[in-house]
């Protein structure tokens, strides 16, 4: 049985290669040679195909073995009875896969969705091309542009200017883990047809003696039209928090490239584990809201506008599968984990920070007391 994992090694010196986002090429850690993704693809095409084939074959074999096990459960005459031994490795073990590192031969125990990782023993970047075979192959990838050092610097920048951040958080917390991950996303195309009715008013106020007379003109305002969308991203990994993946948007689709595993070495990658049908509602909701807002924004020149009827019809289009770059940084402070995500292309940083209660209430009192004094003096005048 062939290897299911591919190590991308330098064609010059066989040292591990990793994708360097800052130069957009694969770089040798040892001799510092650089190669384009296309060059490496060409070199490793045969190896990748073999790994993919081995992956598929193993899947079939695993299915057959499982079937056999079910049929022959219990001891046969003359054999040792190992039926009491559990086949269960614990909760979630059925979601694990075991690969062998092509460099050092160590066993890599990965989740079933893992598509790119690194060997914990020799540190070589490892890609599982089989995770992307056939229909599972992503259409696009956006390569990393932000490197690890930049991501760490961005986290420190993220702390700056946050008055409510506990001082000890900046001083005491340390980055526990930082990893660059290609996160699977579904990209939805489509069109929304909106027909919205508003009640709008314009009010004119004039003074008549000691009275303020208001004259309000009422209108029924109707807007109907279509809005086309392209590539609304929805993350397809159950492991990624949706709010983080939404908040690091937008990605610049100008950098979209046809998918190649050559962009993966040096990073982690998972294949999708949330299917299109389970993600589409999020894209639908965003498209509908945007279409409504586009109609609403065109109602101008009124002082009030209230929606009284809204019909939005979605015409769903093509869905593409893309791997988008994200840096995940986790820190720990006072027994709590804090997760931060950086858009690996644009550098946009998101993550929730702790709030110091002392600072919060101190600030509250610091504003309230002088403001009360000033207002009291004004009232007494």
């Amino acid at each position, binding site marked *: 049985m062939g290897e299911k994992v591919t190590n991308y090694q330098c064609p010059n010196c066989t040292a591990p290669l990793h994708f360097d986002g800052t130069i957009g090429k694969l770089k040798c850690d040892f001799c510092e040679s650089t190669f384009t993704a296309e060059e490496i693809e060409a070199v490793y095409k045969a190896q990748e195909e073999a790994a993919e084939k081995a992956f598929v074959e193993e899947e079939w074999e695993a299915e057959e073995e499982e079937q056999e096990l079910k049929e022959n459960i219990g001891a046969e005459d003359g054999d040792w009875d190992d039926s009491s031994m559990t086949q269960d490795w614990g909760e979630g073990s059925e979601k694990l896969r075991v690969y062998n590192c092509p460099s050092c031969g160590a066993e890599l125990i990965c989740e079933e969705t893992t598509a790119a990782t690194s060997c914990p023993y020799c540190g070589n970047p490892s890609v599982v091309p089989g995770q992307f075979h056939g229909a599972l192959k992503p259409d696009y990838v956006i390569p990393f542009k932000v490197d690890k050092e930049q991501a760490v610097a961005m986290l420190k920048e993220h702390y700056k200017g*946050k008055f*409510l951040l506990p001082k000890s958080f900046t001083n005491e917390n340390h980055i526990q883990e930082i990893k660059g991950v290609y996160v699977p996303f579904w990209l939805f195309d489509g069109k929304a047809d909106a*027909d919205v009715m508003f009640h709008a008013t314009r009010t004119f106020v004039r003074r*008549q*003696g*000691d*009275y*303020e*007379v*208001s*004259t*309000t*003109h*009422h*209108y*029924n*305002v*109707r*807007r109907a*039209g*279509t*809005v*086309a*969308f*392209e590539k*609304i991203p929805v993350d397809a990994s159950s492991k990624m928090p949706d*709010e*983080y993946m*939404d*908040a690091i*948007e*937008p990605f610049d689709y100008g950098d979209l490239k046809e998918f190649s595993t050559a962009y993966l070495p040096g990073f982690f990658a998972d294949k999708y584990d949330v299917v299109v049908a389970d993600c589409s509602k999020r894209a639908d*909701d*965003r*498209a509908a809201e*945007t279409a409504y*807002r586009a109609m609403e924004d*065109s109602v101008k020149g009124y002082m009030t506008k209230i929606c009284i009827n809204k019909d939005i019809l979605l015409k769903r289009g093509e869905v593409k599968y893309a791997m988008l770059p994200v840096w995940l940084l986790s820190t720990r402070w006072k027994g709590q984990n804090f997760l931060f*995500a950086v858009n690996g292309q644009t550098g946009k*940083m*998101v*993550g*929730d*920070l*702790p*709030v110091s209660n002392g600072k919060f209430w101190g*600030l*509250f*009192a610091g*504003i*309230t007391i002088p*403001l*009360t004094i*000033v*207002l*009291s*003096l004004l*009232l*007494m*005048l």
Partner: protein
Amino acid sequence: MKNYKPILMLLLILSLMIPSAVFAACPEAATDSTMEEQEIYIYDQAGLFTNEQYMKLQEQAMSVSNYSQCGVYFVAVNDYWEYSLAGDVLTAAEDIYHEYGFGYGEERDGILLLLSMVDRDYALVTYGSFAHAAFTDYGQEVMYNNFLDDFSDNHWYGGVLDYIMDSERMLDMALEGTPLDVQGPPEGSIYEDYYESYPDYEDSGESLVMAVPMALLPAAALSLVICLVLKRQMKTARIQTNAFEYVVGNSVDFRVKQDIFTHVTHSRRKINTSSGPKPGGGGTTVRSSGFSGRSGKF
């Protein structure tokens, strides 16, 4: 009959021209005539007083007015709506003041108390700079307290008499150079005893006690908003609700853009320019109409 018509026309024109010519030639005569018109100070269209009461009040008001050169007027009507379309008793009092030509001198200084009996409304208005100086917001407050007690008990004569007497005292103090205001009557004034029971207005300690709770709530609300905005900035991971970033360029295509006028509505509200004397403050609040004063129920 036909021959008399030009003569009748001539007589009519002459009858209109002669008084104008006389007033134009003799300004004093015109002034006298105005004085004649202004000699009525008490208008009792609601039938509140006996003849004797009316005469006493009229005499008293005229005496005060002539002495101070500031008209002191009282008008009682059945329903102020008959005098003003503005919809409130204060405006009705202002309209009556102008309509009846009230006031003394170039600035037409005067004070008018109007009672409207149907809904028991009252309005007290002053006009002219001397009247504004004499009847401060605090002074007007003192007057209300004095006459409202009587009117509430249907003691019309006593109430109007209080009004005239208070007017006299306040005008006198103004003529002396120190109108009655929040600080009370001037030290050693013969009116000290009359107004010693209203010291609250200058008690700044109580004003502070009132002002701090009034200021605390909006200050705390504003502070909380600022703190919550800062707290919100600590959470940056949020679900996206729109997809504007992914709208295909110029793809927003409207097929209907329709704005149809349906109807018009009107509303109006009173501009709150007169709010009575401020605790701890003095002076007179004059509205854009040139009047100061206030209204209410008795």
